[in-house]
């Protein structure tokens, strides 16, 4: 049978699993992360993302003219306008990574980076509110 041949062949090959972040789940995640910070353990890196990957948004404050076009097209209302300064604030916790704001900005003040490890306990934490 075809499947038996495939199975026996796969028994001798390396598994297809990407071992990010570690081969087996650690007994205590917090201790694991601490040891990584101290440098005792190394995190298996994730697979590299391709170019033009839509990750966390980056905002160039100087270029922004305050035209509010990005607010109009954001499907999730993740962008907030600050009227006093005529600049915007972007809440990554609401962002759906569609990059429509990037397309519509007339001065190219917005761009998508390749950061995707964005979890946090607080959705208004500093890493998740992009102001500059």
């Amino acid at each position, binding site marked *: 049978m075809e499947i038996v041949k495939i*199975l026996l062949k*796969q028994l001798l*090959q390396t*598994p*297809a*699993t990407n*071992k990010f972040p570690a081969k*087996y789940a650690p007994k205590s995640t917090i201790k694991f992360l601490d040891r990584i910070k101290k440098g005792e353990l190394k995190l298996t890196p994730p697979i590299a993302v391709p170019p033009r990957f839509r990750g966390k948004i980056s905002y160039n404050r100087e270029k922004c003219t305050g035209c509010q076009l990005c607010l109009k097209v954001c499907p999730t209302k993740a962008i907030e306008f600050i009227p006093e300064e005529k600049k915007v604030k972007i809440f990554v916790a609401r962002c759906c990574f569609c990059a429509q704001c990037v397309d519509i900005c007339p001065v190219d003040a917005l761009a998508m980076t390749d950061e995707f490890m964005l979890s946090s306990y607080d959705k208004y934490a500093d890493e998740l509110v992009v102001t500059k």
Partner: protein
Amino acid sequence: MDWSSNSYSLTTVAIVVGSIILALLGAFFGLLYRGIDRKLAAHMQGRIGPPIIQPFRDIRKLLAKESIIPDGGLSWLFQACPFICLVVSILLLTYIPVFGQRALLEGYGDLVLILYLLIIPSLALVVGGFASSSPFATVGAQREMVIMMSYEFPLAVAIIAIAWRISHVTDINPFIFSTVAQYPIWNQVGPVGVIGSLALLFTLLVVTPGEVAKVPFDIAEAETEIAGGLLVEYSGRNLALFYLADTIRAFVMVSLVVALFFPYNLSPVIGIGATAPAVIVDSLFFLLKVFLVMFISVILIRTAMARFKISQASYIYIIAMTLIGLVGLILIHVDMIV
């Protein structure tokens, strides 16, 4: 304790101590082999899989969880069934020769008793399923009953065929394991009989996944169809006992196949006479034999096939496997005449 006499009796202390040691060894190796099974199956499917000690962690985790008893079920029966299942699975270990030694309670029970005792863990699962008051468990219990009735036939045919052949060679009771060990089936038959014995071995290898409820015969616990089937309402300590009993049953069934068809020991072959090294060498050889049989009949079959429907599984056992077993029996008979 005199290992060499044919009719021996043990003191009560010896029985109790031996049973405790066997229970611990059975649990340890049952869980270890389950871990090896998962690791090998994972590598065959191209993934890493859990570490080999994962079943031990599973038992520890289950014992720490709450045991929920469904409202509509019969509470005493619901909690008694896992105990019965575990106790009888361990009991089976005392009657089957493991680790290359004689069975602990050899003088007290033989193959016929094993045939009857093998029914009880499955029956405990069925009764536990019915006592769960859930439609999924009812369907699962019905299916398990049908499977149980189906595989008894080829199992009986295979065992009786071997015992019948041995009875023509010696006067000692052929159902006792030490007789089977003294007169292995392969040494008693000519070439035609070898084909017959292979047919019987094939029958037993197909009965094994049905007995221990693994794909393609895990119909009673089908995950995707009836959401866990028999065991759907079990949790916590009760589920831990069923899980442990399941792993021990797998070990027991494969040991039975090894005891019937490959009762050879390594130490006489390589000439180790002293007791302690012989025990170690025999135990390791036994574990290797169990691993090989488990690989073919449980692990490989489990990963290479889809699950059968109950009508198909019951047809396979009652008609196809029984026919093959009977063909094996006839070939052995023909070999004897010729």
